């Protein structure tokens, strides 16, 4: 048997190394691809990176996101109603890559659209578009042969979620084929839910770090620059999603079209979150 591949982690490695060199955590932002429409979401993505986002997570819209709260559920349905598809998400990535070849891009979502698209075709298209890694919520290590191993083989990182229910016995299995970074889900719950306790997160991150050298990034329930700063002090990065998406939602007209200052408002929140994360030295 050949050694398991770890995917091509160059962009992620470089970005986390750069953050580390600056003595700060990475700010990871999540937005839904195609929400509220393709062009606006491209502008948001570019604007967020300009405002200090280190790693971009793009949600792949899905009708039945079982681990997501109301904000992200609604964002996915808005994107789909505006014509988004897995194909258009990949187009968004390649459009973004036209003038940014450094910012790592992670696609996050659920397995079925990829299953339908075809695993091998999807991995080839994602790689060609400039995707760096995948986070697939409904693919635990028990199902690694489905997409995780083929993704690593195709040169993409497969970033695993570790959760408060992932005990020490289970952690090695969860970390086994993960690459790029580890995403620690700070609460047992859905996205956009209760805020995590910084102390509990700190302990959990320390526990994970005993098992891996990969950067540990924390997400779920982080909404404000202050929370982001507190979490960033304990981890290699902090993820904010629902709070950014809430700003998208608040700046739509009654036809779900973007109001003129929607992008600016999302980017403004992104900037203050980035400042929060970056000001936490660790």
């Amino acid at each position: 048997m050949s050694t398991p591949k770890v995917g091509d982690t160059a962009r992620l490695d470089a970005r986390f190394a750069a953050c580390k060199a600056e003595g700060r955590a990475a700010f990871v932002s999540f937005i839904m691809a195609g929400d509220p429409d393709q062009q606006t979401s491209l502008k948001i993505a570019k604007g967020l990176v300009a405002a200090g986002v280190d790693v971009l997570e793009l949600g792949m819209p899905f009708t039945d996101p079982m681990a997501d709260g109301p904000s992200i559920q609604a964002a996915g349905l808005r994107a789909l109603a505006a014509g988004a598809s897995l194909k258009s998400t990949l187009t968004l990535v390649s459009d973004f890559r036209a003038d940014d070849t450094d910012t790592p891009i992670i696609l996050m979502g659920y397995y079925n659209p990829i299953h339908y698209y075809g695993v091998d075709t999807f991995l080839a298209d994602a790689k060609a578009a400039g995707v760096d890694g995948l986070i697939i919520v409904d693919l635990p290590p028990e199902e690694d042969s489905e997409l995780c191993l083929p993704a690593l083989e195709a040169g993409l990182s497969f970033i695993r979620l570790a959760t408060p229910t992932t005990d020490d016995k289970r952690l090695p299995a969860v970390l086994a084929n993960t690459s790029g970074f580890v995403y620690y889900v700070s609460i047992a719950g859905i996205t956009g839910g209760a805020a995590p306790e910084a102390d509990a997160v700190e302990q959990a991150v320390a526990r994970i770090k005993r098992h891996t050298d990969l950067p540990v990034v924390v997400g779920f329930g982080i909404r404000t620059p202050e929370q982001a700063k507190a979490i960033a002090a304990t981890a290699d990065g902090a993820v904010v999603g629902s709070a950014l998406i809430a700003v998208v939602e608040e700046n739509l007209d009654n036809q779900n079209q973007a109001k003129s200052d929607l992008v600016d408002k999302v980017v403004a929140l992104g900037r203050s979150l980035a400042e929060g994360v970056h000001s936490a030295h660790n």
Partner: protein
Amino acid sequence: MILDKPNTYRAGPDESGHFGIYGGRFVAETLMPLILELEEAWEAAKVDPSFQQELDYFLEHYVGRPSPLYHAERLSDHLGGAKIYFKRDELNHTGAHKINNCMGQILLARRMKKTRIIAETGAGQHGVATATVAARFGLPCTVYMGAVDIERQQPNVFRMRLLGAEVIPVTSGSSTLKDAMNEALRDWVTNVEDTFYIIGTAAGPHPYPALVRDFQSVIGNETKEQMHKAEGRLPDTLVACIGGGSNAIGLFHPFLDDETVKIVGVEAGGHGVDTDKHAASLTGGQPGVLHGNRTYLLQDDDGQIIEAHSISAGLDYPGIGPEHSWLHDLGRVDYVSVTDTEALEAFQLCSRIEGIIPALEPAHALAHVMKIAPDLPRDHILVMNMCGRGDKDIFTVADALGVEI
């Protein structure tokens, strides 16, 4: 896709929860330790005689089992062919087969020291059965139900509330059963310590499809014994309706290795499987991954889940249990579909001729029986699972027939 025939159709799932390529454990990491714990508890309970004794006690004295195997003589004569039997699971406490599974799962929940019960429901039958056993064992119960379904199944919502359950309307997605299941999973992911999720059909992540099947297999095991007593032999044909497919797999499973027994599953064809308004996942869907398992799903060309349609809220689900998908690919079970209109005709015929008002779900199975029975010889024994009674459906049926009540 026709696969090689296995030595037995009854050995599944494999260790990782697969029936061929179907099934599996496609859940968020947060839930993974919980379903492993459930699997372990179930494996231990299965071989513990005291668990089976306790279950048998409640099935007999609380649920009312065994349910009769009834020779539907007038219907057989009317159709002029096969000798038709009904397995009378509509006579169970709460009026459907759902409670067989709920009783099993709540005893398991108690064994696991879980103190809170959640469930999803479509038509409300599973919700009522869950609320019933939760009341019986004094556990708080929360039932997720699509807002659209709440609107069309008011009597069951009231029943659940009478039984002390909290019914939470689900307004996400399309506000029906699949969304109720998403919401129940979201609750479970948030309340991992104390909560037991009683899934209502033979679907979801492993071990649920096998667990629910095992609890529902009481239907087929009883049928086998009762048929032996009545006719001294195996039946020739079994027919059951399929939404998620728990009543069907419960009847079918004990007979899967009896090669002479022809087995037919009836999906809800809605307005017709050539339209976009049906719930026939096997006839009109493709394999995909939803709610923890790989199975046939109604989906569009981007892998987005399509809303199902059926006059029967209990069949109105865009997926199907993974074991059915496997049996479909193997060709062991024939899967057909019946339209809303055909089910309505069967509903009325059965009421008039047999004095049994069937639920709209088994009315689908009956509609298929009406199609095939006339061409079968008089000594052909056919068993149909009368898995629910129709009291809950009288408003829907009256509406469809243009009657105001």
